[in-house]
């Protein structure tokens, strides 16, 4: 980067070059979904020439396996939005507005857990989930090898971030209205529900978007804590297709991959500014 025209030229050249691998990856994904075969980035027909476009790769939409995987993905994502939403908005409110013994410990704990990466606890969580599965009645829905169990673990893992984010949003709200309501005799729960939550709506939306994407994309936790196809979510289902012992049909795999990116593409088009902001969420407070 110098100044002036050469600087500009090098800036754009560098940036364009830097995104080439990303663009190449997506270009292949899109082309492959409508080709019988690809060589490099080119669609190839049976004779080896360029061509051979087809919609046959998309025939998986008529199979029930993909819809059950999609339903599981959706369940995990929605459960995460609700679970992280409730626990973070209530917990964040308590940490932002209450003075109570242990507050400092909770805040420091939240920050430490936020920085701490929980993937290393998966081995032990495996046992916790198996024990949860032994609980009568609800066990099968929240234990090992259940969509509910996967969702619970995912909610817990995103929680430190959620609480910290929501606390930040509550901190930025003036407490005048809240104080007025409390002087009028409103209880804490009503203040939270009727006065505070509407004011942090942008924060809730950001958190919901973030957790939905995290839930929708989840691979490691569902892969570790589920067996077989019945409880597989989309990423796990896709990985089963790739690691099949039979020769992999890469073009169909690409189509399934693009299919599971549909909600993400929609978010990407309509919530660009928000996305860039929420992925900086980890830095709150620096």
């Amino acid at each position, binding site marked *: 980067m110098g100044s002036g025209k050469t600087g500009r030229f090098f800036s754009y050249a560098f940036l364009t070059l830097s995104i080439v691998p990303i663009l*190449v990856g997506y270009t292949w994904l899109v082309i492959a979904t409508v080709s019988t075969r690809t060589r490099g980035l080119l669609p190839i027909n049976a004779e080896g020439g360029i061509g051979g476009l087809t919609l046959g790769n998309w025939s998986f939409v008529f199979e029930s396996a993909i819809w059950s995987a999609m339903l599981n993905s959706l369940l995990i994502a929605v459960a995460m939005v609700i679970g992280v939403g409730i626990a973070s908005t209530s917990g964040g409110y308590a940490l932002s507005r209450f003075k109570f013994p242990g507050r400092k410990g909770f805040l420091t704990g939240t920050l430490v857990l936020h920085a701490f990466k929980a993937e290393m606890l998966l081995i032990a969580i495996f046992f916790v989930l198996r024990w949860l599965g032994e609980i009568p009645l609800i066990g099968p829905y929240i234990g090992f090898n259940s969509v509910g169990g996967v969702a619970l673990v995912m909610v817990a893992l995103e929680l430190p971030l959620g609480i910290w984010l929501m606390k930040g949003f509550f901190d930025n709200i003036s407490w005048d209205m809240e104080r007025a309501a409390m002087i009028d005799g409103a*209880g804490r729960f009503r203040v939270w529900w009727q006065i505070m939550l509407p004011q942090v709506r942008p924060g809730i939306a950001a958190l919901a978007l973030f957790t939905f994407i995290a839930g929708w994309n989840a691979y490691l936790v569902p892969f570790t804590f589920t067996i077989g196809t019945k409880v597989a979510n989309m990423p796990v289902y896709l990985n089963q297709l790739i690691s099949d012992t039979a020769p992999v049909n890469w073009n169909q795999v690409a189509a399934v991959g693009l299919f599971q990116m549909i909600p993400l593409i929609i978010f990407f088009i309509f919530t660009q500014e928000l996305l860039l902001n929420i992925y900086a969420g980890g830095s709150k407070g620096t």
Partner: protein
Amino acid sequence: MTEKQLSATEQLMEQEADSLARAAIGAPKQPRSSLGRRVRSTVSAYGFLLPAIALVITFFIIPGILLIILSFTNLSSANFTEPWEFIGFANFERLFTDPFFPKILRNTVFYVFTTLIFFNLGLALVLALVTTNIPRRRGFFFRLVWLLPRLTPSVVYILMWKRIGSADPFGIYNQFMPEVLGASGGNLFLGGAPWAFVILTNGFVGASFGMIIFTSALMSIPEDLITAAKVDGASTWRIIRDIKLPLIKWPLLFIATYQTLSLLTSFEYILLLTEGGPGLFTTEVWALTAYKRAFSSYFGNSQWAFGATWAIVLVAVALVMAVLYVKIFKFNELVEEPRIENL
């Protein structure tokens, strides 16, 4: 969890109904002692925190303790029906005398610092500097494209890289790049250049976080400062070195520590791309070893206890780093007392 949550909610609603009822009959508010108010406030605070506390205990505290206990047993899928047998420090001895221990340690250090320096820190900084130096909309566009890898499901993302590095005639790199740049015709991520692919896949996701943080830090530098330096005839390089970099010192340190920890404990992309291969432990890092020992049925046997031993070492490192990092960045100063209680 839902039951506990409900009871907390009910409790709070009862409190509220109580105060509403008193308001309805026009009863004067009972003057409460400061102690009574503090007790009440503490009870409500814990009520609001109940869902979070339940989840943290179940999925952080208990697993943390369990991991320590596990590392002193010999629990595996072969003997999990029997009572747990404690074997002292045998797992730790086995870990440190493992013939592949030096290799895994070297791999981990190499992977963490190469990815950190070249991508999560280096490329992130360059991207932030360059995209804030061109018109706003265009800079935004490039940052948005850079966010794509982070948004993409890991399985799909790795699928793309696998196709980029596949063997001829399918591999994209082999198809379009001259042989001098390493296009051997063979599979690159499981043959020619496994480390390059492991670092690229992680780096392309990792760089965007730093890029976003540095961008907002750079954008908050007062324009006057830069203009004044330009008037004085400072070159772009000097403006970066003497003005911009010193002003974003804290974000730089933040990303460096935060991402070191992230990289140290992350293994999802490596698991999907090479599974630690090709061959024996070529790209296997510490976190992946822990996971594979516990879940990938080595020799037809899931060695949970031995996996836990690998994991507990990382957990200890991660915990110490997390505490240090909270201290270094003086997060405690953000933890001011809330004012709402002083009505």
